[in-house]
């Protein structure tokens, strides 16, 4: 294994950002001077952080390789500073049985740039009817279960799914949405939907399901994680339940922290996402919670699509934002540059906090530790283009935008798996 030398940079050790040169030898970090290094990386102006962990990635494979494949999703991940991504089960076929979980893990290892931690589905085919083989999936390496994107509507099935998942101690994640309330809605119900004549998705489509999940979690005494909370009210309900002792956690996305319904005002389908972008007051509230440390995680909800799928009318365009490549830079813009929250105050939300939620060992960049990390230059600017996005899904509203803060290297198991310009 190559000996690497990172010099002239700063390192975040979990407490503070300190100037320090270091080496990577046999995959371990050491500060002791080494003879004969294989590569010297001059990382002036840069900060080294523990690698990122995404709890919510739509990898699209198997089945929809025209949107994203194992090669492109792992490239996008490491370009974005992630060495761990959790695949969502809405693949084709659905990840509702052990061979699909085996396949995803194997393919992830084949490219060997980062780890893919698969989520299995709660119900067969995400249909909300019959329980998936959660036990066998766990045995194959599934880290959690969810019917993401197809929230189980039938409450008794949800109760059984939660109880059954808890038998195997599986992490349960829910995309809280009452699909009857959503109906034909395609963006937040509000001023923009009403003026454009598009059907809106009201806040209660989310909050009613969150309330249901809270009551189930309380009654069953089984932890539940609510993903991509988009509304102020939704977050408030969760925090209140937490205070009352309910074992509930939640995450938010970079796009809900950065954009609002107003961005859809010119029918720009790149902002079409589910749950929809909400109001400025929702956005500001979620940022406030990040600031005060009340959010449990930030997830990308990376949802790559082919270009033509976003060229349909707003009603028909595919839903989702491609996020792995840009998540960290976008968070840096929104949280640090605009809101003045230092990176060390929020980086855990997208690195070690999700690891802890899944009971995976967190990363501290210290002597003699086998650790994954990435190198970030907060001063360097880059333009988001179809070429600078490694994901096959170029569907990000940041296309054409300039971002300050660029990832220079990502190191996975002692190897440089991404290098800027390389």
């Amino acid at each position, binding site marked *: 294994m190559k000996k690497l030398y990172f010099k002239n940079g700063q390192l975040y050790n979990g407490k503070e950002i300190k100037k320090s040169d270091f080496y990577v030898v046999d995959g371990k970090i050491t500060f002791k001077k080494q003879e004969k290094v294989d590569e010297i990386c001059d990382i002036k102006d840069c900060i080294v952080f523990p690698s990122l962990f995404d709890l919510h990635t739509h990898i699209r494979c198997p089945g929809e390789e025209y949107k994203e494949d194992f090669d492109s999703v792992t490239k996008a991940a490491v370009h974005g500073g992630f060495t761990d991504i959790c695949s969502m089960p809405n693949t084709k076929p659905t990840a509702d049985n052990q061979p699909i979980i085996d396949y995803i893990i194997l393919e992830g290892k084949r490219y060997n740039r980062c780890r893919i931690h698969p989520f299995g589905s709660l119900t067969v085919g995400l249909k909300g009817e019959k329980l998936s083989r959660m036990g066998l999936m766990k045995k194959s390496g599934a880290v959690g279960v969810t019917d993401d994107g197809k929230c189980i509507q039938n409450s008794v099935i949800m109760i059984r799914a939660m109880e059954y998942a808890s038998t195997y101690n599986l992490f349960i994640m829910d995309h809280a949405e009452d699909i009857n309330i959503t109906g034909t809605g395609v963006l937040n119900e509000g001023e923009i939907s*009403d003026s454009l004549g598009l059907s809106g998705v009201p806040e209660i489509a989310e909050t009613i399901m969150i309330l249901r999940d809270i009551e189930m979690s309380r009654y069953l005494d089984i932890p539940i994680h609510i993903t991509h909370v988009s509304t102020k009210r939704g977050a408030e309900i969760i925090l209140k339940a937490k205070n009352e002792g309910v074992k509930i956690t939640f995450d938010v996305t970079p796009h809900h922290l950065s954009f609002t319904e107003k961005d859809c005002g010119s029918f720009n389908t790149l902002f079409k996402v589910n749950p929809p972008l909400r109001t400025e007051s929702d956005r500001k509230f979620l940022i406030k919670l990040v600031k005060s440390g009340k959010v449990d995680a930030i997830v990308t909800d990376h949802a790559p699509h082919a270009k033509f799928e976003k060229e349909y009318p707003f*009603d028909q365009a595919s839903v989702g934002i491609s996020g792995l490549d840009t998540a960290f830079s976008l968070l840096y813009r929104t949280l640090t540059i605009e809101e003045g929250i230092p990176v060390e105050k929020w980086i855990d939300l997208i690195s070690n906090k999700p690891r802890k939620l899944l009971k995976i060992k967190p990363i501290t960049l210290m002597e003699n530790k086998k650790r994954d990390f990435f190198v970030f230059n907060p001063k360097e600017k880059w333009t988001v283009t179809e070429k600078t996005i490694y994901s096959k899904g170029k569907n990000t509203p940041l296309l054409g935008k300039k971002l300050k803060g660029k990832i220079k290297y990502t190191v996975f198991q002692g190897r440089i798996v991404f290098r800027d310009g390389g």
Partner: protein
Amino acid sequence: MKKHLITIDDLTKNEIMSIMEQGKAFKEILSRPIKKIPTLRGKTIGLLFFEPSTRTKLSFELAAKRMSADVLNFSASTSSLKKKESIKDTIMTLEAMKIDIYVVRHGFPGVPYIVANNIKGSVINAGDGAHSHPTQALLDLYTIWEKFGELKGLNVTIVGDVKYSRVVRSDINILNKMGANVTLCTPKTLLPRTIEKFNVKYTFNLKEAVKNADVIIGLRMQKERQDSGLIPDEVEFNHFFGLKPEIVANARKNVLIMHPGPINRGVEIDGEVADSENSVINEQVTNGLAVRMSIFYHFVEG
């Protein structure tokens, strides 16, 4: 004048008045024995109707033909819509045929923008989902302007399916712009939730809504609204929100009764009202022709 007419926001007050004045001139031409003029000779107008339409399409087609333009008809069946037909691909094909003005009707909001972004010529929106229908608003305004001359301070009451109506959105925009007072009347389920931002008054009481009205516009009640559970049925709707003689009696004496058509007799409007002396429903069709000629005239110049 802008290149495209997609919403009323594309027009200034002066431009709207210019369309009105020119429309008057075209209406006069339409009353002559020879109704054809050479204004658009050599120009090609493409009628892209991705959604079934009878009246609007006939109106645009005749307006184009009266002005000597060549008319190209493109109608997509609803089945190809279901197949997620790529609008961009369709447009690129038509664009290769060198079309000057595209008249676009589509069931989904925003489609005229997709067309506009992929062509060199102009787009006239003939209705996109529940978003916008500017030519209907212009012909409605023309009908009111022709009768009253002044628009400022007029009381206009709009009754019916507000939430899903492109006509209402465009009518509100143009009437607000010209200084008229708009009152809406419809059950809560058919009212946009952010109605407070629309700069209109609204009431659930029809009698109150039409009080002192100079103009009453009825809207077609789509059968679909019952099917999706937004109203119980036509009988109840007619009882509370149907335009009946005894209701209209509360409006001003010379009130104009308007409707974009086609009307549902006995649902949103009673036959007696639709056929009354105050009704200008058929005149709206003639005005539509004149106003669409005027729109072509303005946008081909622009």
